[in-house]
C-alpha cells in the first residue's frame, strides 16, 4: 500500500516538474469571463477584443496620462468644412489586409454601408451620415453622404453637425473591412479564416466557449508589437482565474470581478508595476424612480442623497480603488465638471429635511432591486451598505433580488423603485450618458427614472447638435448642475478603478483609454 502511494506521488511530482516549463517568448496568456459571440463588430456591442486587434479604424483614441487624445490611424490627414457638415479624409498609403488585398477608400465606404444594411448593432455613428436612413431602410444601396474621390481620398457629409464625429470614428464599431474579401468570405465573423482585417493580429483559432488565439500579422503597416501570440481562455469564474494567475497559468488577469479586499491583500502586495490601474470611464449611480409615491418628492430624493456616505463605500468596499463622482458626466469625458459640488453627505441634515417635509420615522419605504445574476460581490455589499445607511435616517429600503431578465424587464417597464447600476461610456461624448437617461421621455422611462421636466428634456436633446465646443460644454454643465442639485435625479456615487495584474514575464501594460476589459495586445511589453 505504501509503495503504491509512493509511486502515485512520484508520478504526480514528475507531472509537476513538467508543468513548470516556461511559456514561449512573445506568448501572452490571459482569460475572459465570457466567450465572444462573434468576431464581427456589426453584430455586437460587447465583444471588442478581436475588432480592436484584428481590424483598424480611421482614428484611434489613445490614453495620455489622465486624459485621452485622438490620433490618426488609417487616416493621415483631414479637413472639415465651415458648416461642420462635410469631412474630407486622406487614407494612409500602402495599407493591405492580412490576405494581401489593399485597403482603399471604397473599403471604408463598404464598411459603413454594411453596418447600416445589417442594421443590427452599432449603427448610431454611421447613422449620422447623410442618407443613412435610406440605406438602413433598404431604399438605397449606397450611402448618399459618402463619396469616394480616389483610392486614398473620400468625403463624408453629415445630416447634422456633430462636434464629436471624429472621436466617434475611433469606436470599434467603425472598424474597416475588405470589400473584395467579404464577397468570398460568407462566414465572416464566425470562422477565423474568413475574418480578415488590416490590424496587427490575425485570428488563427477559435474553439467556442474554450479559447481563441491571435498571432502577429506580418503585413501590418504599423510597428511590430512585442506580443507575438495571444491566447485568450474562457474561464467564467473569477476565483478560478485568480488561482490560475497565482499558479503561473496566466500572464495577465482582469481584477475587476474580484473583491477589492482580495486585490488589496494578495495583489497590491506584488512588486511595483505588477498591478496596473485606470479609471473605468463611467458611473455607478443610485437611481430613484420619480413615479414612486415617496421618491416623487424631491425632498425625499435629496434626503437620500444626503444620507448616503459614498466615501465610506469607496474606502470600505473598494478599498479606495474608486473615484468619487458627483454629477452625471464622468471624469475623463468632455464637459466633465470638476467644480460641481453635488449634494454633500449630511445624515443629520437628511433627518431634519424629512422631518420638515412631514415624514415620520420609517414611513418612507421602497424596494431596492438587485440583479441577482451579477457576479460582482462588491455590488451586493454596496446594496447592503446603502440600505443600512438609509435605515439610519429612518428610510426603509428593502433589498429585493431579481433574476437578470426579470430585473431588466421590471426596469424597462419603468416601475422599478430604485436600483444601483453602472453606466459605462461607449465613446468620449457627454450625450452618451445625458441623452440616454434624460434626453428622451421613453429612454428615461426605460431606465425607471421617469424624469418629467419636459423643458429640460428638450434642452438635453438639443445640446447634442451645438457645434461650438465651449458653448456645448457650458450647456451640458448647466444641465448637469440643474439635474443633480435642483432635481436630484440620481445619487451619483463613484467610478471604480479597473485593475489588472501582470505576471512575472510582463514589464508594462497600457489599458484601453475608457478602462475597458478589452485591450490592444500591442500595448503590452515583456521584460
Amino acid at each position, binding site marked *: *500500500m505504501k509503495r503504491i502511494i509512493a509511486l502515485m506521488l512520484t508520478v*504526480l*511530482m514528475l*507531472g*509537476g516538474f*513538467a*508543468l*513548470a516549463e516556461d511559456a514561449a517568448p512573445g506568448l501572452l496568456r490571459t482569460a475572459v469571463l*465570457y*466567450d*465572444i*459571440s*462573434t468576431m464581427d463588430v456589426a*453584430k*455586437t*456591442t*460587447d465583444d471588442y477584443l478581436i475588432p480592436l486587434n484584428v481590424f483598424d479604424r480611421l482614428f484611434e483614441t489613445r490614453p495620455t496620462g489622465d486624459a485621452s487624445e485622438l490620433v490618426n490611424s488609417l487616416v493621415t490627414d483631414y479637413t472639415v468644412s465651415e458648416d461642420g457638415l462635410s469631412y474630407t479624409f486622406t487614407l494612409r498609403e500602402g495599407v493591405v489586409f492580412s490576405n494581401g488585398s489593399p485597403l482603399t477608400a471604397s473599403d471604408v465606404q463598404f464598411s459603413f454601408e454594411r453596418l447600416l444594411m445589417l442594421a*443590427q*448593432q452599432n449603427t448610431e455613428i454611421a447613422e449620422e451620415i447623410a442618407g443613412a436612413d435610406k440605406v438602413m431602410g433598404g431604399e438605397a444601396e449606397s450611402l448618399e453622404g459618402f463619396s469616394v474621390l480616389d483610392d486614398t481620398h473620400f468625403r463624408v457629409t453629415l445630416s447634422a453637425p456633430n462636434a464629436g464625429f471624429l472621436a466617434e470614428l475611433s469606436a470599434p464599431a467603425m472598424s474597416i473591412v475588405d470589400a473584395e474579401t467579404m464577397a468570398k468570405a460568407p462566414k465572416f465573423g464566425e470562422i477565423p479564416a474568413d475574418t480578415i482585417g488590416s490590424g496587427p493580429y490575425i485570428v488563427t483559432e477559435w*474553439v*467556442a*466557449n*474554450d479559447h481563441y488565439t491571435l498571432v502577429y500579422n506580418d503585413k501590418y503597416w504599423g510597428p511590430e508589437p512585442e506580443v507575438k501570440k495571444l491566447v485568450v481562455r*474562457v*474561464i*467564467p*469564474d473569477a476565483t*478560478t482565474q485568480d*488561482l*490560475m494567475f*497565482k*499558479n*503561473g*497559468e496566466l500572464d495577465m488577469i482582469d481584477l475587476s470581478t474580484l473583491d477589492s479586499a482580495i486585490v488589496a491583500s494578495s495583489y497590491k502586495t506584488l512588486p511595483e508595476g505588477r498591478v496596473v490601474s485606470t479609471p473605468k470611464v463611467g458611473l455607478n449611480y443610485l437611481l430613484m424612480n420619480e413615479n414612486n409615491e415617496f421618491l416623487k418628492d424631491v425632498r425625499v430624493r435629496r434626503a437620500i442623497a444626503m444620507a448616503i456616505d459614498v466615501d465610506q463605500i469607496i474606502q470600505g468596499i473598494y478599498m479606495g480603488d474608486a473615484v468619487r463622482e458627483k454629477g452625471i458626466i464622468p471624469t475623463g469625458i468632455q464637459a466633465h465638471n470638476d467644480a460641481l459640488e453635488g449634494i454633500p453627505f449630511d445624515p443629520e441634515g437628511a433627518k431634519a429635511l424629512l422631518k420638515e417635509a412631514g415624514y415620520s420615522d420609517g414611513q418612507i419605504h421602497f424596494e431596492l432591486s438587485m440583479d441577482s*445574476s451579477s457576479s460582482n460581490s462588491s455590488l451586493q455589499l454596496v446594496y447592503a451598505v446603502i440600505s443600512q445607511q438609509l435605515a439610519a435616517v429612518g428610510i426603509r429600503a428593502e433589498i429585493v433580488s431579481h*433574476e*437578470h*431578465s*426579470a430585473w*431588466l*424587464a421590471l426596469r*424597462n417597464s419603468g416601475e422599478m423603485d430604485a436600483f444601483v447600476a453602472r453606466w459605462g461610456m*461607449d465613446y468620449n461624448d457627454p450625450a452618451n450618458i445625458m441623452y440616454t437617461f434624460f434626453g428622451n421621455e421613453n429612454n428615461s422611462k426605460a431606465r425607471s427614472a421617469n424624469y418629467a421636466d419636459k423643458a429640460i428634456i428638450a434642452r438635453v436633446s438639443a445640446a447634442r447638435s451645438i457645434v461650438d465646443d465651449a458653448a456645448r460644454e457650458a450647456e451640458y454643465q448647466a444641465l448637469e448642475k440643474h439635474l443633480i442639485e435642483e432635481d436630484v435625479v440620481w445619487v451619483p456615487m463613484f467610478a471604480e478603478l479597473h485593475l489588472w495584474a501582470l505576471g512575472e514575464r510582463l514589464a508594462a501594460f497600457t489599458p484601453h483609454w475608457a478602462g475597458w476589459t478589452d485591450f490592444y495586445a500591442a500595448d503590452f511589453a515583456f521584460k
Partner: protein
Amino acid sequence: MKRSLAHRLIQALVVLTGVVLITFVMLRIVPGNPIETMMGEHADGATIQRMTAEMGLDQPLINQFFRYISSVVRGDFGTSYSLGRPVSELMGNAFANTLTLALLAALFAWIVGLGCGIFSAVNKNRLSDRLLMGTSLLGISLPVFMAAMFLQYVFAYRLHWLPVSGTDSWKGFILPAIALGWNNAGQVAQMTRTTLLETLQEDYIDTARAKGQGTMGVLVFHALRNAMLPVMTMMTIQLSGLLSGAVITETVFSINGVGRLMVQAISGRDIPLLQATSLLATGMVILGSLLADCLYAVLDPRIRRGD
C-alpha cells in the same frame, strides 16, 4: 430477453420525449423576453421586436415546439442566445471534455473503491478496515464542491503540482477526475466490502476452504467473482451519473464541459442551450440505466436461465 429489451427501449424513448416536452414548456413559461436579455444594456425596442420575430418567439408555444422537434431530429439544436454559436458546435466541444472527465473519474472510483473494499473485507474489523470505511463514509457525505475546492487548494495552489484549470493536457484532468470520482469511490468501497463479506459467509466458500485453498485464493477465485454482479451494475449506473454530475466539478475547475455549459446557459437565460444540454444529460442517464439492465441480464445466470 429480446422482448424485454425492446420493451425497455420503447419505455426509454417515451421518457426521453417526456423530458423534451417538460423542459420545453418549463423553459418557456419564464417571464421576460430572452431577446431583451440577450441584447443587454444597449438594446433598442425595434431591434428587439425584429429579432423576436426572426427567431419565431412570437408564435404560439405549440408551433414553436413542433418546429423545435423537427429541427432537433435533423440535428439542429438552434443557436445559443448567450454565446451566439450553434448549440451543436458548443455541445460537441463540451461533450468530449465531459466524457474524458467522467471516464477518468470512473476509473479512479473503481480502482480505488475496489481496492479499498477488498482490503477492508480481508482485514474485517481491524483498525485499518475501520479507518478506511470511516474515510469512505466521509467521501460519501463530502459535498463535491468541498472536495473540488480542497484538491484545487492543496495540489494546484499550494504545491503547484498540477494546473488549476486546463484541458489541453492530461494533467488538467487529474484533480477534477479525483474530485468527481471521490464520492463514487466511497460508494464502491462500501458496496464491495459488504457484498464480499456476504459472499464469504456462504456455504460454497467453506467448501473451497475445505479443499485447501487459502484465504486469499478463496477471495480471488470465488468470492470476488460472485460478488461482482451488484458492484458492476452499480458502476454502470455511476458512469451515467458522472456524465451528468460533472456540473460542480466543471464549474470549480472551469472545464468547458456539458455541466459548465448548462450553468452558463442558466445564468445567460439561454433557452436553446439549456434545452439541448439537459436533453443530452438525461439521454446519457437513460442510456446508462439501459446498459446496466443489459449488463445485469448478461451477467446474472438466473435472469439468463429464466428467459
